């Protein structure tokens, strides 16, 4: 098997690790909550897939693909990185002491009125445009009514029938380690809403505790079309949404913090059948790899029932993913569907967008991941390299800056993906935090290309540059590292011979 380059900064140098399938050495590299780099779905997969024997897993998956198809849709909630909440001026700081970021509005006290944060609209439009949606130039808010301790007003302000954006799509590339492939998934809608507080269940079970810091924090709900067909595609879809919101600067997209939450709807049907099967909702997946495994499990569960003629046992319900047991289980069954009694929010005016407003935002958007990937492909980079470099926007910017200064494309990519990535992993840094500048990397590359120094020397200098900064020229002089050229060497040897 060809050696596999792991995508993303979080991995060890690719040279040391052959085939992903045969040797799943568990990397000790985890994305802690402090780490701002995105850990891709594949990397998480590789860390946890030790539990499932590759051969039985592949066999099972193959059987499923042959006879049935899975229809999967994903609802993603993205917490927006605004300074204040959606409808009041409270700040939101993750990790604050409970019930300190609160005011009468977000606590739902009588007599209060919501006032919309203009940034929320801006972020919603950004996401809508990035997802190639049609924007509703006029949209409204509605009340979604239900009773729950973390919902102070007894309703959530959301958008029901006129969301701010509809009918878009997202494109992504599946990792090469899993066969690669390009995918395009439809986006049904994007709408604005507010988050609820946090409900904690006490140990002894007689009461619960509520923290309203999070109540009123703005969310964007992104609903996909049921175009997704496997756990892998679902995990990559979620990873691309995360990449997108980070590129746009609207959210940090951290699943661990709860800034990115995904609920999945899964149904299966025998290939050739026109009607959809019964769909089952799955909640409580806390990582991309958990999504992948949960969905694959659920597909197996449903197909299993179909194959035994017991598909009537698949009921429309919500199931929870149990990370420990690696299975989905029924939540306590509800009676009937929820009736949210939606009606237009009387306390908020229409959201009106002007063409000018939208055009300004469109013009301000930076190059998005999909466009960047296609551009890097045209530059001649392999898909592995493309996926690595575009995963983190800061890395892509560093790479672009380096080649702008004349560095050769493939060499720049290699340096970033191997030595620099290794350093970043070990020191748990982001590429913005090292002392190496794109200018100096370009200088280093041209020095090696021009023969001034060898590749080996280059590596030494690189380490120095990353940790302490400085310039390539200065370091070469300082350490007297100029590589002797062949003609000089020959003259030297000839001279010696004559002296002898």
């Amino acid at each position, binding site marked *: 098997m060809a050696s596999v380059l792991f995508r993303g900064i979080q991995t060890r140098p690719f040279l040391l690790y052959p085939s992903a399938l045969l040797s799943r050495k568990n990397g000790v590299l985890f994305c802690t909550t402090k780490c701002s780099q995105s850990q891709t779905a594949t990397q998480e997969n590789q860390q946890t897939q030790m539990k499932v024997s590759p051969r039985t897993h592949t066999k099972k998956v193959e059987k499923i693909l042959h006879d049935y198809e899975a229809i999967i849709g994903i609802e993603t909630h993205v917490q927006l990185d*605004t*300074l*204040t909440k959606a409808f009041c*001026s*409270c*700040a939101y700081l993750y990790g604050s*002491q*409970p*019930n*300190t970021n*609160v*005011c*009468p509005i977000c*606590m*739902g*006290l*009588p007599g209060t009125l919501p*006032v*919309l*944060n*203009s940034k929320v*609209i801006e972020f919603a439009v950004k996401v809508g445009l990035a997802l190639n949606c049609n924007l509703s130039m006029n*949209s*409204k808010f509605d*009340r979604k*009514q*239900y*009773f*729950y*301790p973390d919902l102070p*007003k*007894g*309703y959530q302000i959301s958008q*029901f*029938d*006129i969301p701010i954006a509809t009918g878009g799509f997202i494109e992504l590339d599946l990792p090469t380690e899993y066969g690669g492939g390009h995918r395009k998934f439809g986006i049904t809608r994007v709408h604005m809403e507010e988050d609820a507080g946090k*409900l*904690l269940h*006490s140990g002894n*079970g*007689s*009461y*619960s*505790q*509520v*923290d*309203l810091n999070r109540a009123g924090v703005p969310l964007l709900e992104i609903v996909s079309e049921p175009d997704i067909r496997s756990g892998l595609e679902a995990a990559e879809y979620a990873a691309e949404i995360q990449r997108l919101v980070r590129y746009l600067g609207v959210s940090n997209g951290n699943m661990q913090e709860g800034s990115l939450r995904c609920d999945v709807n899964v149904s299966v049907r025998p290939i050739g059948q026109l009607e959809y099967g019964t769909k089952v909702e799955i909640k409580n997946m806390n990582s991309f790899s958990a999504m992948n495994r949960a969905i694959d499990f659920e597909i197996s569960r449903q197909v299993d029932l179909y194959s035994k003629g017991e598909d009537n046992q698949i009921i429309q319900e919500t199931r929870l993913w149990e990370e420990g047991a690696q299975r989905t289980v029924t*939540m*306590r069954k*509800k009676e009937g569907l*929820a009736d949210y*009694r*939606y*009606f*237009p929010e009387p306390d*908020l*005016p*229409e*959201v*009106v967008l002007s063409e000018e407003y939208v055009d300004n935002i469109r013009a301000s958007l930076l190059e998005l991941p999909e466009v960047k990937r296609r551009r890097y492909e045209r530059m001649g980079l392999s898909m592995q390299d493309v996926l690595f470099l575009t995963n983190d926007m800061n890395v892509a910017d560093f790479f672009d800056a380096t080649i702008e200064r004349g560095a050769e494309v493939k060499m720049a990519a290699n340096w970033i993906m191997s030595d620099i990535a290794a350093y970043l992993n070990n020191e748990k840094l982001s590429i913005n935090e090292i002392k190496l500048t794109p200018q100096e990397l370009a200088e280093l590359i041209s020095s090696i290309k021009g023969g001034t120094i060898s590749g080996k020397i280059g590596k030494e200098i690189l380490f120095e540059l990353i940790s302490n900064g400085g310039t390539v020229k200065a370091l070469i002089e300082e350490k007297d590292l100029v590589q002797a050229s062949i003609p000089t060497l020959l003259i030297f040897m000839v001279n010696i011979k004559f002296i002898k």
Partner: protein
Amino acid sequence: MSTRVSFVMGVSSLLQRRCLWSSQWRVRNYSVRSAPLPPDLPLLAETARISLTPKEVEEFTPKIQQVINWFGQLQAVDLQSIEPALRADTEGDNLRNDVPETFENREAMLSAVPSFEEPYIKVPKVLNKE
């Protein structure tokens, strides 16, 4: 405040639900002409978390029916050539800049909470959402 409001709004949303066919948000059917459905009062009270005695259910049902019928008069209006209005008002937007402000009297709010166990609001254990 909120339970009574939600009760009344529940009634009006009954009307709305007839227009938004089976909670499928995409479809808006404005051409409904038939008489409104009789209200299911026990269900309505349940969703609004208001307890009613059987006597009250019997008493209130025709009254609520009258309210619905009163709104139902609007169905006589020909809307074929009218652009749907999203909302009743025409005031324009009311937006706030994204600038944080700390609420000064947090202590007063928290001390008004019936059951507060520092730093959390203590509530009965509720497992299922509605």
